[in-house]
């Protein structure tokens, strides 16, 4: 009667599920024969890639991961893009899956491995030096003071994955090398997600405008090229890459023969920062009570940049409004003359 009872539906579903189960266990059975007994050993990625490049060989090809802090849910693919892995910082000759997933060392794969692996520990055995540098940096200390969530290794370097989603979209976070343009581009956004002001002013700079157009090869500096990676220090500290002692070396990496005047360059122009104009006005207002404050503002190279910017906005507004009006009037008057002439011509005709 074109009507299926609830009971029937469940029956159908469960029978469908049964078929799937049968198929899955059959697949596993075939696999068992084909590869058994398989013990996972160091020095070989072959066993891992054998299944993790083929969705039909995996029991689970996607897993949901819930962020314990933000409760954000991400779908992690269990598939590996071998080319992406090879291109990554870990893709060298002597690096293997179980180096990061040590709980699979020596596991018998006859029936597959356990579903949930331990989170990867980057620090203990391999990257203890940069981790210490990072965790002791002023950057992290300030974040802790201000109750910000301190990013972990994986937040910047890798997340879930050398894994790609079933849609074919590659994960951007596959422990890329520092020279990888996509990675470099994404780091600008990561830094910018907290340092919005610096991000905006960087975009107004010669370097930032090129990276904004999508060119983030090593020819154009992104945040970490100048500020460093693990040990980011305030420019007032002499050790800082953008501090007094090291700035010549930092700029000199790209600009050969960078000199002491050159490195005074303002990387973060405040020309579009309303806040800076407010401090400028406040300093001018309080000039009588606080002449030192005014002097400080005048000596700030940002002030000239702001004046030049405002001047140009004025020139643009004046030129286009006056000449725009002039063009419009010329146009209208020309049309009017044409009409008049035509009118005359018509009269003569009659």
């Amino acid at each position: 009667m074109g009507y299926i009872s609830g009971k029937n539906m469940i029956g159908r579903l469960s029978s469908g599920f049964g078929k799937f189960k049968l198929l899955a266990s059959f697949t596993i059975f075939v696999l068992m024969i084909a590869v058994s007994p398989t013990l996972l050993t160091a020095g070989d990625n072959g066993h891992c890639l054998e299944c993790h490049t083929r969705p039909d060989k995996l029991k689970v090809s996607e897993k949901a991961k819930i962020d314990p802090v933000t409760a954000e849910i991400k779908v992690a693919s269990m598939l590996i893009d071998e080319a992406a892995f090879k291109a990554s910082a870990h893709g060298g000759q002597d690096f293997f899956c179980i180096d990061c997933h040590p709980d699979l060392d020596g596991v018998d794969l006859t029936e597959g491995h356990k579903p949930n692996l331990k989170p990867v520990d980057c620090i203990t055995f391999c990257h203890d030096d940069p981790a210490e540098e990072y965790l002791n940096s002023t950057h992290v200390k300030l974040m802790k003071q201000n109750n910000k969530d301190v990013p972990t290794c994986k937040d910047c370097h890798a997340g879930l994955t050398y894994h790609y989603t079933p849609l074919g979209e590659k994960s951007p976070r596959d422990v890329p090398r520092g020279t990888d343009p996509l990675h470099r581009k994404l780091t600008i956004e990561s830094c910018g997600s907290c340092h919005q002001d610096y991000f905006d002013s960087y975009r107004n700079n010669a370097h930032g405008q090129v990276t904004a157009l999508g060119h983030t090869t090593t020819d154009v500096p992104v945040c970490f090229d100048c500020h460093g990676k693990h040990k980011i220090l305030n420019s007032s500290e002499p050790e800082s890459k953008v501090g007094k002692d090291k700035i010549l070396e930092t700029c000199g990496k790209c600009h050969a023969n960078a000199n002491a005047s050159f490195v005074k360059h303002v990387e973060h122009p405040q020309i579009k920062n309303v806040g800076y104009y407010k401090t400028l006005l406040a300093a001018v207002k309080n000039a009588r009570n606080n002449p030192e404050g005014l002097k400080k503002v005048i000596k700030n190279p940002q002030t000239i940049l702001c004046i030049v910017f405002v001047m140009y906005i004025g020139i643009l507004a004046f030129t286009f409004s006056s000449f725009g009006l002039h063009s419009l009037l010329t146009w209208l008057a020309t049309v009017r003359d044409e009409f008049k002439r035509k009118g005359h011509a018509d009269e003569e005709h009659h």
Partner: protein
Amino acid sequence: MKSTINYIRFSLFHRFCHFLIIISFFGLVLTGVPLAFRSYAWARWLYELFGGYPTAGYIHRICALITFFAAFIHFVYLFYNISVRKKRGFFWGPNSLLIQPRDIFDIIGDIKWFLGIGKRPDFDRWIYWEKFEYLSLMWGTLVMAVTGLILWFPVQFTKIIPVSVAGIIDLPSIALIVHRYEAILAAGFIFTIHFFHTHLLPEKMPADEVIFTGKITEEEFKHERLNQFKRLESQRQLENYKVAPPSLFVTFLARLFAVPMLIIGLIMVGFMFSALLVWAI
């Protein structure tokens, strides 16, 4: 019916200079404007179209060199005519491109014409807004050349500046801001004011070919610059300027070149204006 009597208005040298300026200006605008409008998709597309980084930058610099060349031959021409051939009238009189007292009367006359209380003034060889365009081209080229060179050779330029001054006056940053907004001014001006004043007037549509063919019909001459026409007539010089009308082929070539350029310019100004709207809204 169009009159068949034609007069020469622009010499081959002037037409060649205008052609060089068009080629280099479009090259500079198309490879430079994307940087100023970096956050828009069209800017990215345009930048990629010209090879992206660093190719677009190389094209930009080559076009800058063409501009320098055009400016160079222009000043050589002026120098040669003034000091070697002892020609007069470059600084004073109807043939000068500098502002003259009569320009003030022309402006007043023009305003009267706009308001409908007078007829169109009888202009001479150069109308006041043409002079303004010429002078702003000279000034703009100088500003763009100096700031462009600073951005091209930032290390070498900052070397000249003492460290104490460099902490207050940041030459490359100033150069970048001036270069960016002077460029928007120049591109916006050429693609709107220059286009609508000279090429896209109802009587000229779609382009004023005089700057390409060099020849102006008597009818146009009398309508546009009656004063010059009468002056030459009274000086009995008019005959010297008479030439055969441009062939249909030359006129066609002029349009074939000018119309796409006008369209590209208008598209660019449309993009820039849309960015202004997005920013304003």
